[in-house]
C-alpha cells in the first residue's frame, strides 16, 4: 500500500463515517457539524486527485458559507428531531434491507473488475500535461468549451434568487418602513402649511 492509498482510505473512512452520523445523530447541530467534517474530508480527497481548486472551493463555499448559514437556521427554528424520527424504527428493517441490497448490487456493478483503472485509462482521452495551474485551466475551459452550460448555470442562480424573493418577501400592510426616495423628494410646502388667519380683534 502506497502512502497515497493510505491517505485515501483514511479520508474515505472519515467521509463515510461522518456521512452516516449526519443522518443518524439526534442532535441537529451536531448533525450539521458532521456534515462539515464530511465536506472537509471530501475536500482532502479532491486534493489527493490534484484538484486543488475544487477542494478549496468546497471548503470555502460549503463549509464557510452554506454550512454556517445552515447552522444559523437550525439554531433559530429549533427543529424537534424526535418528532421527525417517529417511525424510524418501524421502517428501518425494510429500508435497511433494500439499502443493503442496493449497495451490494451497485458494488458488484462498479467493482474494480468492471470499472478498474485500466478501463478508465482506456476510455478517457489522454489530456496533454498542463502547463498552467489547475485554477487557470478550469477558468479557460469554463469560458470557452463550457461557456453555454456556465451561462445556464447563471440563469439557474438568477431563477433561484427570484424564486427565493418571490416566495419569502411579503409586504405586509401594517409594516412600517422608510422610503428614502420620498424622503429626498420632500419639499417644504408638503410639510409646513402656512395658514393665514385674521388677527385677533383688539380687546
Amino acid at each position, binding site marked *: 500500500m502506497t502512502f497515497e492509498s493510505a491517505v485515501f482510505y483514511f479520508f474515505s473512512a472519515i467521509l463515510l463515517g461522518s456521512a452516516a452520523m449526519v443522518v443518524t445523530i439526534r442532535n441537529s447541530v451536531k448533525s450539521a457539524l458532521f456534515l462539515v467534517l464530511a465536506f472537509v474530508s471530501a475536500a482532502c480527497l479532491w486534493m489527493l486527485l490534484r484538484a486543488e481548486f475544487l477542494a478549496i472551493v468546497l471548503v470555502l463555499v460549503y463549509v464557510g458559507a452554506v454550512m454556517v448559514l445552515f447552522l444559523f437556521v437550525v439554531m433559530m427554528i429549533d427543529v424537534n428531531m424526535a418528532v421527525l424520527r417517529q417511525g424510524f424504527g418501524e421502517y428501518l428493517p425494510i429500508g435497511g434491507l*433494500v439499502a443493503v441490497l*442496493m449497495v451490494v*448490487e451497485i458494488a458488484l456493478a462498479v467493482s474494480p473488475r468492471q470499472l478498474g483503472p485500466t478501463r478508465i485509462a482506456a476510455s478517457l482521452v489522454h489530456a496533454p500535461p498542463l502547463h498552467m495551474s489547475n485554477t487557470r485551466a478550469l477558468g479557460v475551459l469554463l469560458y470557452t468549451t463550457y461557456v453555454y452550460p456556465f451561462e445556464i448555470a447563471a440563469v439557474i442562480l438568477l431563477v433561484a434568487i427570484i424564486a427565493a424573493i418571490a416566495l419569502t418577501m411579503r409586504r405586509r400592510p401594517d409594516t412600517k418602513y422608510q422610503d428614502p426616495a420620498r424622503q429626498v423628494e420632500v419639499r417644504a410646502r408638503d410639510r409646513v402649511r402656512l395658514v393665514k388667519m385674521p388677527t385677533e380683534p383688539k380687546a
Partner: protein
Amino acid sequence: MTSALALYTAIPLVCLAGSLIAGFFGRILGTVWTHRIVILGIAIAFALSAVYALPRTMAGHDLDATVYLWGRAGGLPLTVGFLIDPLTALMMVVVTFVSLMVHIYTIGYMRGDPGYQRFFSYIALFTFAMLMLVMANNFLQLFFGWEGVGLVSYLLIGFWYTRESAIFASLKAFLVNRLGDFGFILGIAAIYTVFHSLDYATVFAHVDAARHARLAIIGGTSWHMLTVICILLFIGAMGKSAQMPLHVWLPDSMEGPTPISALIHAATMVTAGIFMVARMSPLFEQSPVARSVVLVVGASTAFFMALLGMVQTDIKRVIAYSTLSQLGYMTVALGASAYAAAIFHLVTHAFFKALLFLAAGSVIIALHHEQDLRKMGGLRRYMPITFAATWVGSLALAGIPPFAGFFSKDAIIDAVSYSTLPGAEYAFAAVLAGVFVTAFYTFRMLFLAFYGEPRMDAHTRHNLHESPWVVTLPLVLLAIPSVLAGMVLIRPLLFGHFFRGALYVRAADNPLTRMASHYHGVLAFIGTAFVSAPLYLALAGIATAWYLYIYRPELPARITHHLHGFYTVLRAGYGFDAVYLDGIAASARAAGRFLWRVGDVQLIDGAIVNGTARLVGRIAAWGRRLQSGYIYHYAFAIILGLFVLMTFFLHRG
C-alpha cells in the same frame, strides 16, 4: 397538385360543402338560401363533369393520381385518390345531372316540410358519396363511398322518422345492405391478400400473375382465388343493386320521399353495384364461374321481379319493381361480358327511370300524397305535362324504338344470345320473356293512372292541377335524354372506342365485337328490330295492358279470381319477406333473447362486467390508499422502483 387534379377534387368537395352548409347553417340561412347554395354547388359539379371531365377523358387524357395519404395501417397506405377515365367521367355526368334535376324538383316536392334543409343536406351528401365512389382509384375509397351512399340512403328512407313504416324500411334497407357489404369487404380483404395492394392500377396489372392463385379450404380442397374474390365482390353488388335474393329492401325503400326514390333508388345508388362490376371487369374476365353466377342471378331478377310489378297497386312500387327488373338486365349484360351494354343501359335507365319517378311524384303531389293506383284515373286531362312525360318514360322503359331504352335493352338481349356460359340459355329466355312483362306492367300503370274514369274523391278532383314549374322543368329536361340518349350514345358506347381501356373484355368472349359486325347505323338497328322478337313482345305487352285495363276493365278482377294461388304468391313477393322476417329474423331474435337472458344478464353482466368492475374498484381503492401523502413513502416507492429495475436487468448475464 396539378390543375386537373385540383378541379377533379373540387367536384365532390363542392357537393360536400353544400351539404355541410345546409346541415349546419340551414336554420340560419332559411329555406331559400339553403336550396340556392346547395343547387349552385351541384350545378358546379355537373358543369365541371360535363364540360371538363368528359371532354378531357374523351380526348384521351386519363388521370390516376393520389390526392392525399391519410395514414398507414401496417404496410397498407390509406389514400384518397382519383381515377378519371371515360367510365368514371360518364358516371359523373349521369350522377350529377340526375342529382341536379332532383335537387330542383325537391324545391317543389318538399315545400313546407319541416325537414327541408336537412333533406337538402342529405341529398348533397349523397351526391358527394356517390362521386367519391365512382371517382375512386382504390378499393378503400370505393368502400368509403359505398358505405357513404348506404348511410345516406338509410337516412333518407327513414326521412319521415315519425312513421313506423319508414323506420322499418330504413332499418331493413340498412341490414340487407350490411349483408352485401360483408361480402364486399371480405372480397376487398381477399384482394389485399392476393395483391398486397388496394390500388386499382396495381391490382389490375397483376391479375395475370394471380390467375392461378388458389384459396386453401379445410380438408385439402382449394378454390380458384379470383373466382372467390369475384363472387364476394358480386355479393356486395347484389346488396347495393338489389339482386335476388337481397332485393327485399328496394320496394320498401319507397317509404322515402319521391325525389329520393328517383335519385338513389332508381338512377344512381342502386347502379353502384353495376358500376363496380364493370370497373372490376379485368377480374371478372378471369373467372367464367363467377360470370355465370352473375348471369343467372341477373336473369332471375330481371324476370321474376318484373312479374311482381304486374300486381302492385302502389304507383311507386310498380316503378320500384321495374327498377329491380331493369337492374337484373344490367347484371345479365355484365355476366355476358357486355360491360359496355350494361353501362349503356345504366345511363339510359337513369334518365327514363328518374323521369318516371319524378312524374309519379308529380301525380302524388297533385293527389295530396295518395299513391294507390286504384284511386287515380283520368289524370291526363288535368296534368298534361306529367302525362306526356310519363308516356315518354313508359315507351323508353318498354323498349319501343326510337326511345332510349330500346337501344340498350336490345343490345343486352343480343349480347346474351352470344354468350356460351352455363346458364346462358336460361338467361336469354328470361330476358326475352321479361320484355313482354315489362311492357305490360308499365302500360298498366300508365292506363290506370291517366286513363279511364277518375276514381279519387270529389274534393281532390276539384283541386287537381298541374304541378309548379320546379317540378315540371326537371320532367322536361329528363324527357329529352330519355328520347335521344339511345340514338346518340349507341355508337360511341357500344361499338366505338369511348371506353378504351376502362373496360376489359377478353377478345374471344367479346359479344360486342360480334354485334359490331352487324351494326350499320341507328336506322338499320331500328330496322332489324322489326324482324326480331323483342319488339313484338313489347307491343304485345302494351296491347294486353290496353285490352285489360281500357277495353275490358272488368277482366283483371276475374283473372285474379281464377288464378288466385298464383296471384297470392306474387302479392307476397314469393315469400322472401316472410322467410326473412318470420324465419331468419325471428329465430335470430329468439337466439338473441336467449343469449341476452342467460349469456348477457347472468354471465357477462353478472360475473364478468359487474365482477370486473367490482374488482377494478377494489384495486382502485387500494391503489388510492397507497398514495398516502407522505414524502418518504413516495421516495421509498422511487427507490423500490429503481431497485427492481436494477435487480431485473443488471445481473442476468
